[in-house]
């Protein structure tokens, strides 16, 4: 079965990749399986300087989901390029760098740095990280700000840019159209929904950062709705994510409008989640009478 998909800058052998922040820089999961099996790898967010992130607790479990407020902990873009990218480049897979920041300048700095490497195939522009106090989220909820940062990042680099949208907005299609207009090569959606859990004995938020981002199976219906909605209104490709756990989930995202998908929280439950999905995808496509991944995309376009 042909699982290939071609997206700007990415010739993927299959449409499955780990989602940013849920796979580190691949090292730990490379002890479970050969990362060359993946369609691509989206790295953990990179900022200009090293960030230590938020205090702990940083995660909390919820019904069919989890909250996280890691706070973009990362060693800074230069050390990522020096230590992580070369190791990942050994694998036969594409590398997508997740670009974060709290100011336009920081986004541009990180983008330029990745632009100078040879091994990064595309950028995922993270304008939607809900767990940092400055910047981040405004870029993700205001269409004008989103346009601005997208245009700036496009200008700073030759790499295709996938803008990662926040679901915490009234009108997701408006955000998608704004970044498409600003030159985005693709979209990545959805990031986490802002949520909270209280610690009953104290009545205070369980997560040190108070709020956290909700991910996992709980949010899948929201992701599907947003991707479906956006697919009607923009034509650039979408990397879909939000609660994908099985090959059937992946298929549902493709049917809804995604051209490839990322798997986040599911890796924590099952470190083999990505490869299990890749293995199950052919039989799942056959079961629902598709002949290839591209066939799902083509037949969907006919419907929409």
């Amino acid at each position, binding site marked *: 079965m042909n699982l290939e998909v071609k997206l700007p800058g990415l010739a993927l052998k299959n449409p499955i990749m780990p989602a940013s922040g*849920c796979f*580190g820089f691949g*090292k730990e999961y490379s002890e479970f399986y050969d990362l060359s099996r993946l369609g691509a790898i989206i790295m953990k967010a990179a900022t200009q300087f090293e960030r230590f992130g938020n205090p702990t*607790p940083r995660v909390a*479990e919820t019904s069919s989901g*989890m909250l996280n407020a*890691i706070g973009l902990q990362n060693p800074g873009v230069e050390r990522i390029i020096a230590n992580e990218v070369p190791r990942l480049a050994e694998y036969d897979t594409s590398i997508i760098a997740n670009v974060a920041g709290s100011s336009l300048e920081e986004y541009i700095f990180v983008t330029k740095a990745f632009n100078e490497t040879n091994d990064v195939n595309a950028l995922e522009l993270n304008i939607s990280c809900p767990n940092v106090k400055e910047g981040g989220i405004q870029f993700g909820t205001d269409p004008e700000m989103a346009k601005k940062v997208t245009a700036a990042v496009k200008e700073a680099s030759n790499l295709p840019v996938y803008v990662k949208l926040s679901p915490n907005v009234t009108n997701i299609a408006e955000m998608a159209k704004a970044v498409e207009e600003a030159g985005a090569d693709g979209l990545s959606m959805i990031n986490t929904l802002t949520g909270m859990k209280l610690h009953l004995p104290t009545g205070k938020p369980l997560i040190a950062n108070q709020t956290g981002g909700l991910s996992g199976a709980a949010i899948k219906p929201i992701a599907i709705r947003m991707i479906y909605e956006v697919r009607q209104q923009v034509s650039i490709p979408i990397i879909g994510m939000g609660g994908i756990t099985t090959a059937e989930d992946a298929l549902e995202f493709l049917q809804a409008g995604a051209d490839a998908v990322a798997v986040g929280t599911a890796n*924590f*439950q*099952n470190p083999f989640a990505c490869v299990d999905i890749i293995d199950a995808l052919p039989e799942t496509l056959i079961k629902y009478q598709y002949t290839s991944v591209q066939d799902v995309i083509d037949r969907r376009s006919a419907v929409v």
Partner: protein
Amino acid sequence: MKKKHEMKVLSVETIAKETIEMKLYQPEVSKQTVPGQFLHLLVPGFTLRRPISIAKVDKQEGTITILFKVVGGGTKSLAAYQPGMTVDALGPNGNGFSIDDVPEGGRVLLIGGGIGVPPIYHLAKRLSEKNVELVAVLGFQSKDYVFYEDAFKEIAETYVVTNDGSYGHQGFVTHVFPEVGAFDQYFSCGPLPMLRAVTTELKDTAGKVSLEERMGCGVGACMACVLPTVDNSYKKICSDGPVFSAQEVIL
């Protein structure tokens, strides 16, 4: 390559109040495990795995024993497992207690609090094979919660402390430190307030502590379980730990 293990449940027993001992069959893991390591258990219906320390292994039998306290939905569900069922586990995870620097013939203080006692027992067993003199101080909330006292007594000079004095000494584990005599090194596992008291009290002695934090991945990828270190950096409890030198971390 690392694996996911389907471990067969051999027995499930309540050995003290809210405290379950579960014996699992998995020869491969039983051979690899060092004291202080943990299993990361999938409980159907829950998003995140549960980290539970390994309390003992029997390489001959190919078994692993874990002990856990029923605190929430996950542990409640695990406590209801029946022999014959299987548990999906990752592990052994984490670094474990390194005992290479414990000299033959030395004297070691072991301090366990509540559900922190099991990994200390595993360590005690391993140390006892090494010809070191062991002193164990075990703290529990009250009499009903006490377990493994006899097992410890076979291999260590053992003090039991309960917070309410309903059994053994009354108060905190640190209260009996004056009685235990000299020792070269200590190892401790238990609730954070206890570890804080222990490391403060014993700040001039070499020591290792085993820590807890809420986890996402349990393998070092997600940065959920970090801990600040004295050199202004951080460590991941799931993969750099859960055991740290008492001097290295900020509690």
